[in-house]
């Protein structure tokens, strides 16, 4: 931070804009399309998830949907706008997921779990993972998906956070067998439809989400004024050209309302589950962490029972090739955010001026990585995809994130 008493030069404040770099924008879109074509030709499934990743990145960049701020701002600002949008998105995804799961497992009480649903045993490891992740995302200033989309926008500190996340994931891998033997292997799986049927499980989940929504409103009350959401009272242009221009500006230049982002992400999640598996970003990173550590002889080796955990477990990215759907989703996320930022003229390399921020990025990243490695996922895989999978683990992780974020706020308040 630099504070000076003299006024800054006024010349730059006149709103001068560089001419729109149309060439750069067109090139960014063309490269995205070309990558999509090439990846799809190599592996159709990986190509599809690259497309989902691009959508994921565009949604996060345009709406600035940040799960870290959703939890953090409940405590820091008594602001629940983002959290309420996310709760609505989870509710929407719950309906879609339930429909899909009822197709693959018609009788939920028979004991079988739907393939790929993010349902894992319930235990202290989920709580520890959520707490660690919650503290980490607040300290680092973004969760894992937030870190990936900010890399696409040009935030250099987010690259440092990513390195921290990889370290944390590898630390989780090194302690995995202990956790597996101590708890996870014998912990109960609680899949709500197994007890309540689909209708009962959906009703309970929606009721809990509604309760969380009201609690968020309660938290926001008495917090002071809010910026009103404005309805645009603009005349619709008559020409097709004018209409197309208006739509382009609305979707690619103007930021989206946060609720639009959360709903779009929920729809994308249902598409992803329909295609194969729900969204999740850390499974691939865990595999990368292990590969990198093995190069230095620091690999964790065999992880017991890890593949029994659905979702973003530490081996989720494993395959004979690196061109997996998990990898292309993450790569698409970064590239989609990059393209969206370029289209909106918002891409810029940003370096934090205070060195302590790099420390926060590493430390927050390590805490997030450890939490995500332990609890098989991040705010996306273990929360945004887990609650709609109707597993109790999603709720437990979410509550732990909330407590962790509250602790993280106390930490950042003490870092200047």
């Amino acid at each position, binding site marked *: *931070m*630099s*504070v*000076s*008493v*003299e*006024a*800054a030069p006024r010349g*730059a*404040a*006149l*709103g*001068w*804009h*560089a001419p729109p770099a149309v060439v750069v924008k067109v090139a960014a879109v063309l490269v995205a399309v070309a990558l999509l074509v090439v990846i799809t030709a190599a592996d159709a499934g990986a190509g599809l998830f690259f497309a989902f990743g691009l959508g994921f990145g565009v949604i996060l960049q345009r*709406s*600035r949907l*940040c799960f870290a*701020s959703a939890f*953090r*701002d409940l405590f*820091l*600002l008594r*602001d629940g706008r983002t959290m309420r949008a996310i709760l609505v998105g989870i509710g929407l995804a719950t309906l879609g997921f339930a429909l899909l799961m009822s197709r693959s497992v018609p009788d939920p009480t028979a004991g079988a779990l739907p393939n790929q649903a993010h349902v894992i045993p319930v235990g202290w490891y989920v709580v520890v993972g959520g707490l660690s992740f919650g503290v980490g995302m607040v300290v680092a*200033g*973004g969760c894992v998906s937030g870190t990936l989309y*900010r890399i696409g926008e040009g*935030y250099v*500190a987010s690259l440092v956070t990513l390195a921290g996340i990889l370290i944390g994931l590898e630390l989780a891998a090194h302690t995995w067998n202990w956790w597996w033997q101590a708890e996870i292997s014998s912990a109960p799986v609680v899949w709500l439809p197994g007890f309540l049927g689909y209708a009962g499980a959906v009703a309970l989940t929606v009721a809990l989400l509604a309760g969380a929504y009201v609690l968020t409103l309660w938290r926001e009350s008495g917090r*002071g*004024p*809010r*910026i*009103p*959401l*404005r309805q*645009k009272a603009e005349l619709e242009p008559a020409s097709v050209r004018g209409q197309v221009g208006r739509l382009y*500006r609305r979707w690619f*230049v*103007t*930021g*989206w*309302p*946060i609720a639009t982002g959360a709903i779009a992400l929920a729809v994308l999640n249902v598409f992803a589950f329909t295609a194969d598996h729900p969204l999740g970003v850390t499974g691939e990173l865990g595999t990368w962490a292990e590969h990198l550590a093995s190069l230095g002889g620091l690999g964790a080796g065999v992880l017991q029972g890890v593949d029994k955990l659905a979702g973003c477990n530490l081996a989720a990215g494993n395959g004979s090739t690196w061109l997996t759907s998990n990898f292309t989703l993450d790569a698409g996320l970064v590239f989609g955010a990059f393209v969206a930022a370029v289209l*909106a*003229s*918002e*891409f*810029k390399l*940003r*370096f*934090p*001026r*205070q060195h302590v*921020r790099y420390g926060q990025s590493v430390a927050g990243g390590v805490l997030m990585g450890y939490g995500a490695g332990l609890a098989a996922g991040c705010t996306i895989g273990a929360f945004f995809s887990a609650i709609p999978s109707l597993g109790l683990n999603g709720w437990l992780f979410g509550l732990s994130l909330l407590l962790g974020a509250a602790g993280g706020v106390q930490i*950042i*308040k003490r870092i200047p």
Partner: protein
Amino acid sequence: MARVLDVRGEICPYPMMKAVEQLKQLKGDESLEVLTDHAPALSTIPWEAAKLGYATTIEVNGRAEWRLGLTRDASASRDPSAVLERLSERLEQLGVAE
């Protein structure tokens, strides 16, 4: 003369926290200018500023960079909704959603 707070390179929640810290130290009719390149700060700073009785103007200051002018405005504390309404209009002009 306005104090200048340069929080370029900082991400949430620091631009907002530092702006609030500075606003609380201002004396009399002193105003504050905040430089940021973090778009989310455009909705958090004015909001917190309004609570403290400051109105906000936003100017584009080059590529993905904005200059916020925070000035004491009696009406901000009396009728924050009017101040925020004007601001919301401005954010829309600039193509930055709430």
